[in-house]
C-alpha cells in the first residue's frame, strides 16, 4: 500500500509525519490512521517482546495498547522527526515506570512486595517482579535434586558441554548426559505443582 503516490516504502519518519496530521478540529484522516497502523505493523512485535519482560502477562496487552495510544496522541506535538522507534520506546518505558509505581501503591496488590518496590533512583524499576513465582517454584524443585544432578544442571546453564562437565564432576560425558536428562525430566514434571 502506498501511503502517498511515489513513496513505495516510506520511512518511519515519513509515516510518522503523515500519522501526526490532524485537521483544525483535531480529527485525523483515514490516511493518518493507515500510516500509524503501518508503524504499528513494523514495530509492534518487538514492542510486545520488550513488554513481556517488563509487565505481567495479564497487563501486557493493556500497556501495549496504551503505549501506541500515547504515541498517537503525542505525534502531532511530541515527535519532531528522527528515530521513531527510539521515541516509541521512551514513551513505553515511561508508561512501564508509571505502571509499576501505581501497582505498588495498592495495598491489596497480590504480589506487592517491599523488596520489589521501584528503585527511586530508577535503575531497575521492575527487577523484583520478574517471574518471581516461577523462580520460587523451580527453586523448590531444585532442592529435591541430588548434588550431582544439581551440579550437572548448573554446569549446563553455564554453557558447558558434557565432555567438559564430565571431568569436572568425575563422570564420563555419557554419565553426565544421562544425569542431566534425568534431572531435566524430573524438573519438567515438578514445576507448576507436580512432584510435591
Amino acid at each position, binding site marked *: 500500500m502506498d501511503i502517498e503516490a511515489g513513496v513505495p516504502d516510506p520511512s518511519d519518519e515519513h509515516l510518522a509525519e503523515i500519522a501526526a496530521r490532524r485537521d483544525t478540529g483535531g480529527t*485525523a484522516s*483515514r490516511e493518518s*490512521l493507515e500510516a*500509524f*497502523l503501518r508503524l*504499528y*505493523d513494523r514495530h*509492534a*512485535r*518487538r514492542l*510486545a*517482546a*520488550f513488554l*513481556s*519482560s517488563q509487565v505481567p502477562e*495479564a*497487563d*501486557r*496487552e*493493556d*500497556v*501495549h*495498547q*496504551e503505549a*501506541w*495510544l500515547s504515541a*498517537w496522541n503525542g505525534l502531532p506535538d511530541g515527535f519532531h522527526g528522527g528515530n521513531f*522507534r*527510539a521515541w516509541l*520506546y521512551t514513551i513505553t518505558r515511561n*508508561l512501564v515506570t508509571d505502571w509499576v509505581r*501505581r*501497582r505498588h*501503591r*495498592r*495495598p*491489596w*496488590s497480590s504480589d506487592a512486595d517491599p523488596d520489589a518496590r521501584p528503585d527511586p533512583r530508577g535503575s531497575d524499576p521492575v527487577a523484583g517482579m*520478574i*517471574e*518471581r513465582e*516461577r*523462580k*520460587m*517454584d*523451580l*527453586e523448590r524443585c*531444585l532442592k529435591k535434586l541430588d548434588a550431582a544432578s544439581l551440579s550437572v*544442571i*548448573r554446569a549446563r*546453564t*553455564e*554453557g558447558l*558441554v*558434557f565432555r567438559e562437565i564430565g571431568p569436572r564432576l568425575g563422570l564420563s560425558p555419557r554419565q553426565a548426559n544421562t544425569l542431566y536428562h534425568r534431572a*531435566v525430566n524430573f*524438573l*519438567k514434571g515438578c*514445576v*507448576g505443582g507436580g512432584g510435591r
Partner: protein
Amino acid sequence: MKLHVAGLPEDPAALPGWLEGHLVGLDLAALVAELEAIRGTPADGPALREVLGSQFDAVLTAGLDGLPAEALRRLLVRPRLLLDLQELVLGSGSDYWDRVARPAAEHAAEVDRVRARLEASLMPEGRATAPGGPAGPRRPAWGRRPWLVGLAAAAALLLAFLASQPRQSARGWGWDRPDALPRSGPPDAYLNGLADAAGEWFNKVPEDRSALADRILDLRRGCSVLLRAEHRPLSGPDRAWLLGRCRAWASELDGLLAEAEAQDEPRGPSELRRGRPPRRADPG
C-alpha cells in the same frame, strides 16, 4: 508450566540462535527467572557493553553469532544481562532482529489483538468496528487494572472468608466518605483517589456472616454513591466507562448480598470461583 531452560541446546553452535529466539520472543523473563533459580542471583559484574566488547555494534546489526563463547557464557551466568540485551536489540537493533525467527503463534495473536483494539479505539465515530476489537472510546488505562475491575470478585471471596477483625463503622468510609469524590482536579488524581478509597474496604475483614453482609452493603452503598455522583474531573467517555463498571458491580453485589442473607450455608471460595468466569483486565 514449561521449563524454558530445558531447551538449552547441547550443540554450542546453536546457542546464539537459541538466545536470539528468546530475545525477540515473549518468554525471556521466564528463562531469566529459571536461570537465576538454578544459578542464584549473582553479584554485580561487568555491564552489558563490557561483556559484548568489540562485538557490540555487530550484535545490533548481525545478531549473536559472532560473540565469543566466553561472552555467551557470561550472559548465561548473569542472566539479567539478557534483559538488558533484549532492550538493546529491540530498541536499537537493525532489521536483522525482525528476521531472527518467526513469531510464535501466541506472539502473533497478541500483536493482532492489540492492533484490533487500537484500530477500534482510533476509528472515527460511526465507522465499523474492527473484528475482535472493542467498540467505543478509549478506556482509561487505569480502568483496566485488575484491582478495580476485580472489586466485585474480591467481595465474592469475602463471602466465604472468616477472620477476627473488629467491625468498621458503616458510614463515612470508602467512597461514602464526604471527601472521596472531589469536584475538581486532574482525572488521574481523581481516579487514583477512588482506588485509594476502595482500598479501605479491603483493610478490615468481617468477623461473621452478619458483618460480611454489612460490608457488602457498604460496598453497594459506595457503588450507589458513584452512580449518583457528577464525576466532574472526568471526561465524558471516562465517566461513561466508570458508571458502566459501577452498574456491573452493583448488580453483582446485589446477588452477593442475597447470598449472604440466605439461611443456607454460603458457597466456599472454590465454589464461588467455579461459578464465576475468570477475571482479567477489562478488554475495553
